[in-house]
Structures are given as structure tokens and as C-alpha cells.
């Protein structure tokens, strides 16, 4: 550290000795003042003219262009946004209407179906009733017929059985009366 310090002091001493050789500031030497002034004015004037006439308007144009473009794009974006919002509203409206219509159609078809089912049911019921009535009539008729035919058949069977057993021929009317009598007693059991 000590050697470093002494070295630096020595170098400063050497340097200052050298400075003394060329004393003063070159800035204060007026030899080239006029030349510097002349060239400064010349160069700066050319620079000023070229900057103010060519480059600044160009840069300004460019900046304005960008600003306009950004503004335009933003406006367009807003317009598109509004448009899309309107479209969305329209879509919602359509959807709602469609839903309403669906409900309406649903109700209509349901009521129509209900009506149809009702009327068909009614007609079916009427038909069934008719059929039942018919069948009942038939049954009662059959009942009647069957009684008389059973009596006739049983009469003839009885007479046949008596003939075969006793070999006598009994009076038909008496047989008939007996059969009727018996059948009246017993038929109620079966019919």
C-alpha cells in the first residue's frame, strides 16, 4: 500500500511537471475561435434546416398515423363490440321466442292429444256398452232357449228311459208336466 501511494505521488509529480510545459487551456487560445464559430453556425444551420424541414415532419406524420390508426382500431373494436352485443340480444330474443313457441306447441299438442284420447275413449266405451248389451241379450235369450230345449230333451230322455225300463208308453203331457215341475225346482240351482 505504501509503495502504491508513493508511486502515485511520484506519477502526479511527473505529470504536473509535464503539464507545466504546456501551460493553460487550449479553449482560451483565440486562434481558431472564428473558425469554430463559423463552422458551428454553418453545421448547426444545415442540421436545423434538415431536421425542421425533413425529419421532424416525417416523424410527426408517423406518430400521427399511429395515433389515428390506434384510434380507428379502437373505434372499430367498439363498433364490433356493440354489434356483437346487439346480435347477442337478438339471439336471446329469438331463443326466448322459440322457447315460448315450444311451450305453446307442447300445450297445443297435449290438449289435442287429450281431446283425441277423450273422444276415442268415449266412443270405445259406447261401443263396449253396446257390445255388452248385445251379449247380455244373447245370453238371456240363450238362457230362455236352453231351458225350453233342456225341458224338451229331458222330456224325451225321460220317456225313452221309462219305455226301456218298463216298456210302457206314458202319456207325453204328464211327462212334460213332471219334467217342467222338476226343472222348475232344480234349474234355479244351475242358472
Amino acid at each position, binding site marked *: 500500500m505504501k509503495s502504491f501511494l508513493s508511486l502515485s505521488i511520484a506519477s502526479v509529480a511527473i505529470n504536473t511537471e509535464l503539464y507545466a510545459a504546456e501551460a493553460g487551456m487550449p479553449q482560451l487560445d483565440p486562434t481558431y475561435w472564428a*473558425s469554430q464559430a463559423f*463552422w458551428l453556425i454553418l453545421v448547426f444551420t444545415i442540421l436545423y434546416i434538415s431536421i425542421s424541414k425533413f425529419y421532424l415532419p416525417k*416523424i410527426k406524420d408517423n406518430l400521427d398515423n399511429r395515433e389515428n390508426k390506434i384510434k380507428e382500431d379502437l373505434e372499430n373494436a367498439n363498433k364490433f363490440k356493440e354489434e356483437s352485443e346487439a346480435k347477442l340480444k337478438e339471439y336471446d330474443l329469438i331463443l326466448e321466442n322459440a322457447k315460448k313457441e315450444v311451450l305453446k306447441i307442447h300445450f297445443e299438442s297435449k290438449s289435442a292429444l287429450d281431446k283425441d284420447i277423450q273422444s276415442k275413449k268415449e266412443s270405445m266405451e259406447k261401443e263396449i256398452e253396446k257390445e255388452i248389451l248385445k251379449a247380455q241379450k244373447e245370453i238371456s235369450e240363450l238362457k230362455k232357449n236352453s231351458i225350453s230345449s233342456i225341458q224338451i230333451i229331458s222330456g224325451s230322455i225321460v220317456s225313452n228311459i221309462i219305455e226301456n225300463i218298463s216298456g210302457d208308453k206314458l202319456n207325453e203331457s204328464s211327462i212334460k208336466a213332471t219334467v217342467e215341475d222338476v226343472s222348475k225346482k232344480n234349474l234355479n240351482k244351475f242358472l
Partner: protein
Amino acid sequence: MASNPMQQFTVKRIGPEINIAGVDLSFTNASLFMVISATVIILFLFLGSKEKKIIPNKLQLIAEMSYTFVAKMISDTAGSKARPYFPFIFSLFMFVLFCNMVGMLPYSFTVTSHIIVTLIMALFIFIAVTIIGFIKHGFKYLSIFVPSGVPAVLLPLITVIEIISYLSRPVSLSVRLFANMMAGHTMLKVFGGFVVSLGILGGWLPLSFSVALTGLEILVAFLQAYVFAILTCIYLNDALNLHH
């Protein structure tokens, strides 16, 4: 390496001697670096405004940023009335900035480290601002020396101080830039000289100082250009918007 730290500021003639009416207007290294700085500015602005892209490339972005930077500086300090002077302030800022920055390159010459250069710029600004003030406000412009709300007893004193401060504007404006640039470059040179004289053993300390100082000087180069431009804006503001 020249070990005199002031030698870097010497002006040398390049090419033939140009003598007009007994005045030496020769092309010097100072003139050369003015031309180089101006050429770099024009090249930068040319490349920065060549392609008119919506999404800018780097150079275009820097050119547009410097435009908006200066435009904002003017509108902030001098208001909308200063709009016509925008090209001048922009040129001034770019010229001082690029002269300072080009001067940071090794073996180059710093144009703004010469008092005559900064004084001419400052004097031009001072005279132009004074003329603009008188054109806009007539003799009422003199009221800039009489601030309102000052007690009558103090008024003569304040007015004298105001006049002195107004007249010292070109001096302070020019000396600030010149002294900053000269001091910075002298310091760099001195530390550079230490590196050489202390050699490989002891040279590391001044070398690290040199590196740090280079960074500082680049900051100063920008800052001084900014200060020069913003003070011009403030003087312009005084001339355009007369109120205290």
C-alpha cells in the same frame, strides 16, 4: 499517449488554410467533429423515419422517443405557445447530446468542451429569446425585471439583481456545459495517465476509477444536453408567457 490532460482540447487545422477577409476560418478537428455529430444525427433520424411502420423497429422507436421526449419537455416548461420553436430546441438538444456522446469515444474531440462553441449557442439563445420577448410584449417585456409582490423598499435592489441574473444567463448557460465537459474529460485523462504510470501493479485502482468515471461521464453528457435544452425552454417561457 500524451500525458497532458489538456492536450485533448487542442484545436488543430485539417487541410488547407481558409482565410476570408483576414479571418482564419480553416477546417479544424473541432469542425470535423461538429460535422461528424451532425452527420450521425441526420443518419439516425433518416434511418429512424425511413420506414413508416405502425409497430416501429428499434431505431424508429428511439427517434420517436426522442421526438416525444423533447416535445413533452417543451410543452411542460414553456406551454403550447412554444410549439413553433420545437424544431430549434430539438436540433439544439440533439446537437449538444451527440457532440457530448461522440466526445466520449476514445481519440475523439469534444466540441462542447470549448467555451467559444457553448458561448455562441448561449448568446444566440439569449439574443433570440430577448428579441422574441420584445416582439411579443413590446416594452412591457421589461417588467420581467420587476417581480410583483416585492416591497417598494426592496424594489430597486431586486430589480438590479434581476437585471444581473438576466444578463448572466448566457454566461451561466455556456460555462455550465463547457466546464462540465472539460472537467469530465480532464478527469478521465488524468486517471488514464495514472493507469499508464502506475503500470500493471498499481494501475488497477485508477483503471477501475476510469471505468466508473466513463459511466458517470456518459450520464453527464446526457444530463448536460438535457439541462441546456430545458434552460432554453425556461428562458423561452419567460419571453412567451410574461408573468411572475
